[in-house]
């Protein structure tokens, strides 16, 4: 969506409910599934955390209604972050 156009007010309260539910789900997942292999525990928790982070960025930070070129700018550190962690971890 290009800047300059009006858009409906985002569903702030619905996003809040989803964030609250995901937070509870994360805590319960971490507390109840301790028998799960560490890798799958981490995958599940990171998936829920990223979901929450994307909701905050898209709706509360209004990224969903910003120009696509701003999306590209905002997304640019993510591959750098992944490369940093993955490359250094491989040293061990």
């Amino acid at each position, binding site marked *: 969506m*290009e*800047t*300059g*156009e*009006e*858009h*409906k*007010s985002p569903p*702030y*309260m619905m996003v*809040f409910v989803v*964030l*609250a539910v995901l*937070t509870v789900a*994360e*805590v319960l997942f*971490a*507390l109840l599934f301790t028998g799960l292999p*560490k890798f799958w*525990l*981490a995958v599940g*928790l*990171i998936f*829920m*955390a990223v979901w*929450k*982070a994307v909701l*905050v*960025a898209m709706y*509360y*930070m209004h990224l969903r*209604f*910003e*120009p696509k*070129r*701003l999306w590209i*700018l*905002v997304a*640019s*550190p993510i591959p*750098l*972050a992944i490369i*940093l*962690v993955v490359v*250094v*971890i491989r040293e*061990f």
Partner: protein
Amino acid sequence: MTTITADRAPMAGMKVYHLKLGMWVFLLSEVMFFTGLIGAYVILRFAHPEAFGVPGEVLNVPLTAFNTFVLICSSVTMVKAFAAIEQNDQQGLQKWLLATIVLGASFVGVQAWEYTLLFSEGFVPMAESYHAIARGAAEGSEVIGGPLYGATFYTMTGFHGAHVSIGVFCLCFTLWRARKGAYTAGNLGGVEIMGLYWHFVDLVWILLFTFVYLI
């Protein structure tokens, strides 16, 4: 409806106004800052798992889960403040900004209290070994040795707490300006970029809470 007003007229190129672009670029630098801290924690934990305790044994997960909820609520109040000034509702703006300040300050207070509890259990930044009271274990039982856990934990959460504290001060300044009538439906860029910073602080905590307290 969200209307793009004259003060937020998009500039050529990125098609966002200068205040917003400046704040986003600053936040991206903060992303790299926290990537360094969290990345170091992930890498050190991967390389030296024996130096790190199981989070639920050393850290107070229920307390911090409540604190996470407090910070999420503060994001809601911040977005309500922005929505209020979009409708030129001065009272609403001030009310929701005040609520955000209270919730943000509460978050910092609870974190400070958490630090005092951990200190009293011997979990300090560079402790060689500590006798943290493992949840359910005997009092005084030694959990793990080595300074890595304390150093990484306090660095990450301490820097985040500092960001929240600075955000609270900035919110107080924004509220002070709001009480002077500085913001209107036609001039709310300052509120918007304050909101961007505050939501970013919440977003970082969402990730920190997961990596440090749950995994």
